[in-house]
């Protein structure tokens, strides 16, 4: 009995610790965004006395913040849709058609997961620069398009493989062509795989910092994560606004996660286990 109480206490202490380290920093950031500069400095634990959205409006209306947000959103969306299209086409023929080198292609694509991040920095930097795409949104989109190759291959190949082949046979007998079978028959059947891959791709693109930092220079093409690096200068030690801006950067990711919890959970493990 005592032993059981001890083990229960231990387990709950760990769970409470998990929740606190995961959520408390965020709660603190959001809370601070509703407090005055003086309150942030003098009483960091106090609850905000009122919910004043003034700092948020100020952040949104100044400092190009809206430009950064729009950049982030368009770049992430275009790259996500493009990746989904390209890699589901690739995964589709690997899953559904037999041709020479089919398995070799899959193994090679899967092996891209083994290349440690950042090692390809210079070639990608030079590629974008030599294409004349340095400091453009197109350059970032191009790089982000390459990011999800292995993950999409894994997710989409298994989704397409799960479609029973009788469906294909029936359609072929009915005289449907290659494109029609793909677009009208198979693609609608892998909606959940597409959604999972899409969410993971979008989150990755929306959050990306490293290449945004390397490949853009002007504020016109900056994305939100990279804009964070300039916050101290931008907000001139107005802490309330800094916390409000930080809240605005982290909210979309959390919202997407809350809405699509099951899929994010699945995809996070699917993408990593198979690596």
């Amino acid at each position, binding site marked *: 009995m005592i032993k059981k109480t001890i083990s*229960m206490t231990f387990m*709950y202490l760990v*769970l409470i*610790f*998990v*929740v606190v*380290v*995961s*959520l408390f*920093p*965020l709660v603190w950031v959001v809370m601070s965004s509703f407090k005055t500069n003086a309150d*942030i*400095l003098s009483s*960091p*634990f106090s609850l905000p006395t009122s919910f004043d959205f003034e700092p948020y409006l100020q952040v949104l209306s100044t400092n190009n913040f809206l430009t950064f947000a729009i950049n982030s959103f368009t770049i992430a969306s275009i790259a996500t849709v493009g990746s989904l299209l*390209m890699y589901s*086409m*690739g995964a589709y*023929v690997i899953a*559904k*058609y*037999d*041709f020479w080198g089919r398995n070799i292609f899959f193994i*090679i694509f899967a092996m*891209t997961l*083994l290349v*440690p*991040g*950042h*090692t*390809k*920095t*210079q*070639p990608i930097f*030079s*590629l974008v*620069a030599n294409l004349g795409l340095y400091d453009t949104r197109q350059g970032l989109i191009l*790089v982000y398009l390459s990011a999800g190759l292995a993950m999409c291959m894994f997710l989409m190949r298994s989704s397409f493989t799960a479609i029973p082949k009788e469906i294909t046979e029936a359609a*072929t007998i009915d005289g449907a062509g290659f494109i029609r079978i793909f677009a009208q028959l198979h693609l609608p059947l892998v909606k959940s795989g597409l959604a999972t891959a899409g969410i993971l791709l979008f*989150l990755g693109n929306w*959050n990306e*910092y490293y290449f945004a930092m390397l490949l853009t220079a002007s504020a016109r093409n900056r994305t939100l*994560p*990279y804009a*964070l*690096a300039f916050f101290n200068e931008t907000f001139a030690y107005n*802490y309330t606004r*800094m916390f409000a801006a*930080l809240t605005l*950067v*982290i909210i979309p*990711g959390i919202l997407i996660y809350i809405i699509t*919890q099951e899929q*994010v*959970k699945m995809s*996070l*493990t699917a993408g*990593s*286990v198979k*690596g």
Partner: protein
Amino acid sequence: MDTKSKLGRRNLPWVFIFLLPTLVMFAMFYLWPIIEVFYTSFTRYRGFGLHTAEWLGFANFTRLFNMQSFLISITNIALWSVLAIVLHVSFGVVVAFIFYRGIPGWKFARAAFMVPVVISSAAWAMIYRFIFNNDFGLLNNIIRIFNPDFQLNWFFSSPAAFWAITFTWVFYAVIVTMVVLGDLMAIPSDLLEAASIDGASSWQKTWFIKLPLCRFSIGTGVIMSVTSRISMYEAIALTSRGGPGDDTMSLSLILVRAISDNNFGLANATAVIMFIMGILTMVIVNKLFRMNDSVY
């Protein structure tokens, strides 16, 4: 001949067209970059094609090994990797075993645990920059409850900066937890029942059945957490910037610095070292955890 291969042959042009975009991306962003990185790490290079690279032999590597910041980076990565295994992965495994017990509230804890990984690592680094801030930071304010005179700029003093950076990732082990939890849930229940009938205690079941059966996912967790230490960038660049001195330097910071100095050969020599460290980690963990043998 099954329908699949017949279909394949008849539609060969389409198959090729569908595969083409993936192949182009693979060649542009994976295959060619790796060739370029390995070759030009032995050269003086400005990024205008391999024919413009000027052969230097091992000069870039010799230069790296004579750089103080490089040696500190290697030490830091080694120490962070040890911490990743000893603290990060084992914490993730412990949490997975607790989730597996399914005590009330575990689903909420799991959902909360996931939140830090859906946030941009840049934003997470900024949050921690604030938490460790001397004036309004969360941590110092907690410490000042007990010691009112406490003053410390965590990210700008030695050795506090190293530990502050460690804190930004060490407890956020949700991916390890999820991967291990997946393996735990896959353990056939008759196996555990049989062990109970033979008189195994719950500790014995954990040590001799569950943990060994999770070795694939634990190994995966070790590989993932160590390789992310090798390429860690945002958590350093947005907080201590490698300082104070070279205290918290890491290879990816050296790489970025070399690129902004237009010294691409040196940047790629750094990348080659990162690459070798990553592959070595994978090979060693694979051997140690016998990840190639089937679990059941």
